[in-house]
């Protein structure tokens, strides 16, 4: 190893260490609370004297009135997130294919209009969204949250998928057309397989967006048996004597599925699938 590589490594460490501390600090506190007994949770120690998994036992067996529906709420979060991910994919893939490959007239304008909605902060749209859902009689129905989240996730997803579609060579469509493929066969047999990496990325994005959503979930759903775990976590703070160690434990558990999903799907998000299609 010569001096040049040593200095490069040193520079990387100089950036890497602060970033690591920056990201790990909140997680460290989360873990610290989660393994501390109730009485020493707020003691300000760097590591508890008697680390315990007692908090996890309480959460998993729903032994606190804030946690009466822990598993159900976890399930709600999951089912809503998956539904949002899948629905967004269906909507966005169809739209991107129509705009980018079938060149539907006015498609680009539609996409730009949809993107324009991002100029309005989600918080401003909360009340209109609430009223709209009320009109359709969807309040206190999980579909309201699913539809709201698809609405929020779709424009960006369409845009990302459209950009990715534009990179697929047009000759592939023409070759498929000459080979006798109908637009639907082209979509299913050529377009979807080649778009897989982007689809995984966009699906994951929508899924995590819904999983992490608080505002709309809080607004559109109110029954304890319907709300997502994220909203339930917020409800912990309703009282003065919040059980911090249980809040943090539940928070830690709540943070695990996204991490798992990210790592599970990461390997699909690789590019280079179109290598060899056309001479570049």
């Amino acid at each position, binding site marked *: 190893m010569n001096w040049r590589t040593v200095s490069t490594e040193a520079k990387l460490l100089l950036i890497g260490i602060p970033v690591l501390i920056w990201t790990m600090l909140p997680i460290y506190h989360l873990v610290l609370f989660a393994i501390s007994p109730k009485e020493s949770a707020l003691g300000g120690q760097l590591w508890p004297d008697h680390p315990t998994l007692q908090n996890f036992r309480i959460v998993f067996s729903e032994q606190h009135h804030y946690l009466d529906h822990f598993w159900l709420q976890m399930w709600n979060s999951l089912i809503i997130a998956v539904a949002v991910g899948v629905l967004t994919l269906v909507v966005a893939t169809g739209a991107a294919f129509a705009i980018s490959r079938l060149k539907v007239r006015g498609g680009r304008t539609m996409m730009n209009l949809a993107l324009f909605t991002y100029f309005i902060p989600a918080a401003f749209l909360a009340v209109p969204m609430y009223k709209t859902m009320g009109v359709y009689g969807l309040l206190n129905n999980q579909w309201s949250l699913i539809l709201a989240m698809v609405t929020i996730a779709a424009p960006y997803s369409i845009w990302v998928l459209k950009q990715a579609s534009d990179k697929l*060579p047009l000759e592939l469509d*023409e*070759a498929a057309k000459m*080979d006798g493929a109908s637009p639907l066969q082209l979509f299913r047999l050529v377009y979807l397989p*080649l778009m897989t990496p982007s689809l995984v990325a966009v699906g994951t994005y929508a899924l995590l967006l819904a999983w992490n959503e608080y505002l709309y979930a809080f607004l559109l759903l109110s029954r304890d048996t319907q709300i997502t775990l994220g909203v339930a976590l917020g409800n912990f703070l309703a009282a003065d004597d919040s059980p911090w160690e249980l809040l943090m434990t539940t928070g830690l558990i709540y943070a695990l599925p996204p991490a798992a999903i990210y790592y599970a799907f990461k390997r699909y998000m690789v590019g280079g699938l179109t290598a060899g*299609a056309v001479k570049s």
Partner: protein
Amino acid sequence: MATVSFNTVEKSFGATKVLHGVSFDIKDGEFVVLVGPSGCGKSTLLRMLAGLEEITAGTIAIDGKVVNDVESKDRDIAMVFQSYALYPHMTVGDNMAFSLKLRKADPKVMAERVDRASKILNLDPYLKRFPRELSGGQRQRVAMGRAIVRDPKVFLFDEPLSNLDAKLRVAMRTEIKELHQRLKTTTVYVTHDQIEAMTMADKIVVMHDGVVEQMGTPLELYDTPANQFVAGFIGSPAMNFLKGKVKSNGSAGFEGPNGVKLPLASAPANSEGLPAVYGVRPEHFTIADDGAEAEIIVVEPTGSETQVFAKLGGEQVVAVFRERHQFSPGDKIRLKPDPSLVHLFDEATGKRLNG
């Protein structure tokens, strides 16, 4: 096996007209090359035949049946693209079988046809590979295989060799020609390379600015180009053009630039003093005592022949000699065109004047 006919075919993209009434017929089993400079409309014409572009006006017929409103997939034609356009997520075998799968062909027939095509193209060791694992030439062969498997009425090639390196291009040229001799399928082949056109075609269609300049066999185009454009486009190095006047009183002749006297076998009737362009191919010059004086500028030996660039009557011309002369720049030589092989074009219209 099919005939193809274009009847006053026109194409506009918005306000821009790119094809101005193209008409010609292709016989059953013929290998026709559309050639012309980029932007002449040859690819557009091919894509219209393929059904990838709308026909603005006129008709295109395959086997006597007008296909203007027939979808690509029902025209029974196969196309090989310049960029290969292989499906990257399918193996070579699946790429070739794709069209048959879409037609829900019998798996046995499918396997048979893929097997036959891969044997013809020497692709059988690669059937399980993906396009990204193949070289450029192999990919181009897969693209051809995909067309062969279909057993179509007409093969279309859109500049299929442009992406290959020079050596491979020559090899693939022979391979495509051999393939055509074997399958005898009517073929329309687009290229901007006149050597490809000359070597491969049964008939060449020279296009320029959206019109057909001339259609004929390679040697017809070479020997009797219909106009100055075709004369300049076909042949390498290109034909030399010298402006001047026809002399028909007394013995026929041509007065070139700066009064240079050039021989002419016969002059067209009533052409005394007619402004014209005198065309002579580089290989039709000989060194002769009664030739016109020229000063050598550059000598380029290629081994089999030598290209000599010289000033003749102030104009630069190129001559090609198979015999080895000892020339150096600055030398004065006497160049004599073979009068029987000289071309004469109208200066204003560019049309051929002699027979």
